[in-house]
């Protein structure tokens, strides 16, 4: 049996505003394994609750009920020092590769701050090595980017640097919230590839949150499909995609356009003649 | 309602003075803006029709029959209030100049108390019983007789009525009883001798006097809330030669009554102006602009600079004096007062040092732009009082105590003798800088400007003086409670024709501890010798020759200590326009004092004649 890295149990989150109650998450449970490192995909359309789930895991929002346990400890009960530890172990990459950079600072600071705060290095030289290594993992050379301002970089570069940043802490889990949805298709593979490599070579697990089932299918180990805050389908990636059980999951998978003009969608019956 | 409507009709027909000028372009604008603003050519045509008729001779002739006065206090918040006993009333919108007549009028020029509604007011030998005789045939404007009962009613109302009523305090204080001996005779039994009973309360000594009310109207009214106004019944009812026909916040119109009692009885002639108008003017600019255009015949006190610019615009404009200082002297001398409970200014020598540092001529030249004269003493410069000051001079007091001497060297000498040494710009002693903070009421520009010049003069000799403006309420409270170092004020105000009123204000009996409200002697100066001498002539008849000796003795004590420093005579620069009306008072035609906001205006109205230009 694999070690459990992160376990979400019966997570429920409701929002109250002016008498109206909306449930973003309804009793969601899932498990991310530590070893072997896993890419667990949370897939769903907008409003399905996947981002709420990510935020809860990252500690940005509190669950209404249910628990999130990290290596057996409920993250809501972490002490201050444990929290820092948790931050170190669980990192994230976000959707928007532009907003995550503070425009005021150069790229270097992103790494320096982490090294200082988590005391990752004893010397400057060691710090430099750590940064180079992290950037190497994502295929970027430090001197090309470190002294630049964020707006001087491309989207693909930014998202990869974010990966490098997360990697710098040698985390056990990276929550990747739509990391490729704002990146051009031709660059998407590059980022997904980094994820695969981090899983395979560095043993880092991922919680890959996406609306795009096809990328989940391509790199995911497990897939969880959320719909309206509920978990409607889960299992090994292959199984979920090829043999979905839930009606909505079938609809969802069936709606994904196939890049093959020979297998076209059915047109409306009366317009088929065209 | 009806009289007002009538007026409104007339007003729209005449060429009314409006705004600064009535030039054509402005009229065109007016038509345009009405046309656009209210929309519709009909409106504009009505208006232009009105204008056509307004240019006619009828309008001008009405103006020629009208005297236009300035409401010196500005806009009237309560235009329908004619109760002269409450604070909200504005009696200066014509009420007490044209309608409410005084019993007597003190002529500041002759210093005679002249009869008006009263014929005589005589004390007994002990000065505690005063007998008032009224004129024969005096009538209220509604035809009722003006008689002793009205006087008794009024005095009793003030004696027994609420303490809030104006004029009630002195009546409560002095009058033991008042009785009507016969319809024309009233006897006042006072609580003690008072040689100034008539002068102080019934003769328009300053501004106004105790009003006599028609008993038949006031009977049963709440004197605090009664408005005394009713358009239908032509209220207010008083005895004067004019009747109110319009009251708005900015304009009051009075029409002449042909049935005025004094004309009927032949005591006085009917005034020539048929119509009197009091108009509120927002700023000095407006006042001056209007009198420059002959839209006003008389305006309130204005600054010298404004008067000079007025003279260049209106050749008919004149003031009391043809040249500097132009102004007439008001009874309240401007002072620099020290708080005698505050170190080191309770030291007479320091006060004298200040006196020598002060250059009164410069104050007059700068703070007044030449519109007044330096004060020799704390009396206003009126003939009767000047006599006393001349007496002090001839007695050699001013040689002994050179009050008017501007001598900075002497000031410095005193300071250094007192052990003050100069540290940089200013003197100090024992590490304590010599400071003087002069508080001024910031609303009253004149008082403030005096302080500003004094400050500069004191700083020149090395006294670190500053002036500090305070809200009037704060300032007057501070003064009364003795919470100040020095102030510029007019606290010696009281004497007009006899010396006691002002002198007694600084009697040691009024001294109270700081923090308590002083009812006089706000400087908290205790000089028993002064007090005794003032007391010695308190109850002497006003013409008693012994008064002189006591005044000299008291003045010596005062000069020796110099508890406060008289700075300048109070000026009132009152311009008149003789384009429509002649006979305005002036120094060369000084039949009465010139302020047209005083009750003595009744006398001015008697002297006006149309210029027929």
């Amino acid at each position, binding site marked *: 049996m694999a070690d459990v890295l992160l376990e979400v149990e019966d997570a429920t989150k409701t929002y109250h505003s002016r008498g109206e109650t909306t449930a973003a998450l309804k009793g969601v449970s899932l498990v991310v394994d530590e070893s072997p490192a896993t890419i667990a995909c949370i897939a769903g359309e907008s409003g399905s609750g996947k981002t709420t789930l990510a935020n809860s895991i*990252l*500690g*940005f929002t509190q669950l209404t009920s249910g628990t999130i346990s990290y290596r057996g400890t409920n993250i809501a009960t972490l002490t201050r020092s444990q*929290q*820092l530890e948790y*931050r*170190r172990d669980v*990192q*994230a990459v*976000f959707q*928007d590769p*532009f*907003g*995550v*950079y*503070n*425009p*005021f*600072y150069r790229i270097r600071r992103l790494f320096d*701050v*982490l090294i200082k*705060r988590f005391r990752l290095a004893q010397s400057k030289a060691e710090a430099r090595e750590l940064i180079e290594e992290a950037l190497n993992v994502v295929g970027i050379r430090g001197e090309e980017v470190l002294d*630049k301002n964020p*707006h*001087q*970089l491309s989207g693909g570069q930014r998202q990869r640097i974010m990966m490098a940043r997360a990697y710098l802490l040698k985390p056990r889990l990276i929550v990747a919230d739509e990391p490729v949805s704002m990146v051009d298709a031709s660059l998407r593979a590059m980022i997904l590839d980094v994820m695969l490599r981090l899983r395979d070579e560095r043993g880092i697990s991922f919680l890959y949150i996406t609306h795009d089932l096809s990328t989940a299918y391509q790199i995911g180990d497990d897939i969880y499909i959320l719909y309206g805050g509920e978990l409607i389908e889960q299992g090994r990636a292959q199984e979920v995609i090829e043999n979905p059980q839930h009606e909505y999951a079938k609809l969802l998978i069936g709606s994904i356009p196939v890049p093959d003009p020979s297998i076209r969608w059915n047109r409306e019956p009366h317009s088929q003649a065209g | 309602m009806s009289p007002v409507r009538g007026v409104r009709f007339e007003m729209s027909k005449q060429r009314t003075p409006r705004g600064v000028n009535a030039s054509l372009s402005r009229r065109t604008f007016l038509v345009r803006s009405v046309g656009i603003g209210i929309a519709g050519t009909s409106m504009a045509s009505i208006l232009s029709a009105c204008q056509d008729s307004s240019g006619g001779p009828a309008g001008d002739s009405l103006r020629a029959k009208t005297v236009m006065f300035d409401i010196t206090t500005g806009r009237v918040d309560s235009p329908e209030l004619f109760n002269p006993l409450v604070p909200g009333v504005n009696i200066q919108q014509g009420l007490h100049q044209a309608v409410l007549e005084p019993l007597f009028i003190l002529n500041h020029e002759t210093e005679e108390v002249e009869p008006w509604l009263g014929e005589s007011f005589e004390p007994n030998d002990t000065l505690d019983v005063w007998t008032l005789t009224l004129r024969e045939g005096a009538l209220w404007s509604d035809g009722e007789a003006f008689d002793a009962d009205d006087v008794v009613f009024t005095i009793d109302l003030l004696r027994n009525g609420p303490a809030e009523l104006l004029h009630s305090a002195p009546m409560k204080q002095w009058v033991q009883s008042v009785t009507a001996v016969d319809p024309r005779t009233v006897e006042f039994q006072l609580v003690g001798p008072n040689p100034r009973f008539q002068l102080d309360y019934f003769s328009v000594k300053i501004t106004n006097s105790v009003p006599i009310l028609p008993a038949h109207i006031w009977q049963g009214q709440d004197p605090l809330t009664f408005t005394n106004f009713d358009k239908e019944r032509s209220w207010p009812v008083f005895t004067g030669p004019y009747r109110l026909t319009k009251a708005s916040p900015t304009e009051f119109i009075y029409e002449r009554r042909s049935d005025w009692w004094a004309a009927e009885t032949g005591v006085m002639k009917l005034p020539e102006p048929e119509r009197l108008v009091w108009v509120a003017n927002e*700023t*000095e*600019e407006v006042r*001056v*602009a209007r009198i420059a255009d002959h839209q006003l015949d008389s305006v309130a006190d*204005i*600054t010298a*600079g*404004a008067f*000079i*610019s007025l003279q260049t615009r209106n050749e008919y404009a004149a003031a009391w004096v043809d040249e500097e200082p132009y102004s007439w002297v008001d009874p309240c001398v401007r002072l620099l007062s020290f708080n005698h409970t505050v170190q080191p200014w309770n030291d007479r020598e320091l006060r004298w040092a200040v006196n020598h540092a002060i250059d009164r001529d*410069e104050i007059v*030249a*700068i*703070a007044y*732009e030449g519109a007044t004269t330096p004060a020799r003493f704390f009396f206003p410069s009126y003939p009767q009082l000047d006599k006393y000051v001349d007496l002090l001079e001839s007695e050699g007091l001013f040689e002994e105590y050179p009050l008017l001497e501007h001598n900075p060297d002497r000031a410095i000498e005193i300071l250094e003798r007192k052990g003050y040494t100069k540290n940089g710009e200013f003197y100090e002693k024992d590490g304590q800088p010599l400071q003087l903070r002069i508080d*001024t009421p*910031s*609303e009253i*520009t004149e008082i*403030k*400007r005096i302080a*500003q*010049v004094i*400050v*500069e003069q004191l*700083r020149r000799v090395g006294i670190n003086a*500053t*002036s*500090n*403006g*305070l*809200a009037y309420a*704060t300032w007057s409270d501070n003064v009364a409670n003795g919470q100040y170092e020095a102030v510029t004020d007019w606290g010696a105000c009281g004497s007009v024709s006899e010396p006691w009123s002002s002198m007694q204000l600084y009697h040691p009996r009024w001294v109270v501890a700081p923090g308590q409200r002083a009812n006089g002697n706000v400087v908290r100066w205790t000089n028993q010798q002064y007090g005794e001498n003032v007391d010695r002539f308190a109850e002497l008849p006003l013409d008693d020759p012994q008064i002189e000796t006591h005044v000299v003795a008291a003045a010596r004590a005062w000069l020796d200590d110099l508890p406060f420093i008289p700075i300048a005579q109070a000026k009132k620069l009152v311009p008149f326009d003789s384009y429509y009306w002649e006979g305005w008072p002036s120094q060369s035609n000084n039949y009465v004092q010139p302020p047209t906001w005083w009750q003595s205006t009744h006398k001015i109205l008697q002297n006006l004649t149309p210029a027929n230009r």
Partner: protein
Amino acid sequence: MTLTVQQTVAPAETTPRRPRSPWRNTKLMVGTLMVLVIVLIGVLGPLFWDTRLSAAASSPLNLPPFWEAGGSSDHPLGTENSGRDMLALVISGAPATLRIGLIVGVISIVIGIVLGFSAGYLGGRIDSVIRTLADTALTIPALAILIVISSYVREIGIATMAFIVALFAWAGPTRLIRAQVLSMRELGYVRMARLSGASTVDIMFKEMMPNLLPYLAAAFVGATSGGILAAVGLESLGLGPQRIPTLGMTIYNALQSSAILRGMWWWWGLPTVILVVIFVGLFLISTGLDEVANPRLRGRR
């Protein structure tokens, strides 16, 4: 099969959207220049001119500027009716007026930063309280109340004056900063900083503050200008400091003495011109800063 993609060197610096430094904004520069001129008048003026001439009775009365008939080169800008030299009044009045504004600006921006950050970042009840207070302060007809207050509290120096005015001036910056912080709180890099274990203080001052600088500067200038406006207003009603010849006091004196009627345009005109320069200068600075903070407003005529 050939590739048609043009290969050229693409140095990042030539990225088309890369703007010229936004701080090099014409409005900002012109405005700063205008205010600097006033500051220089205040700083250098006393070296060339005797400011003691701003005291009453120091000069002849009612002189026009030197180029008008009757003017004197001893008093190049003329004098007023208490014998104050207009040049000296301007030299000592302009910085006094600016100083009031600056104190108000500093007070409001400090309060604004503290309250705005607390409200925007911490949220919850603190936010509701601060927001309500700020909204209230913005709703209240401040000048009317200021007039009331300063007519009662008359022990006024420049500092007191500034404090009174600041009573209401903090609300604007507070609201502005709160709104910015609120919108920034959910920004990627703030989340990123939290993820990096940054403390609240670090997030506020190291992550958010630098990006708020143009807003802070604009709020500061706005509060300064508002402070001067209120102070000059009060002074012109005669409710200002009495000893210091601020520009507003000079205008008040001119109004009191019918300067317009008397044709003494220099008396009220000079302080007015200086005030206009100050106000327009500050206004340009603040619109310039707005454009710095909000690039969409940039580049339009």
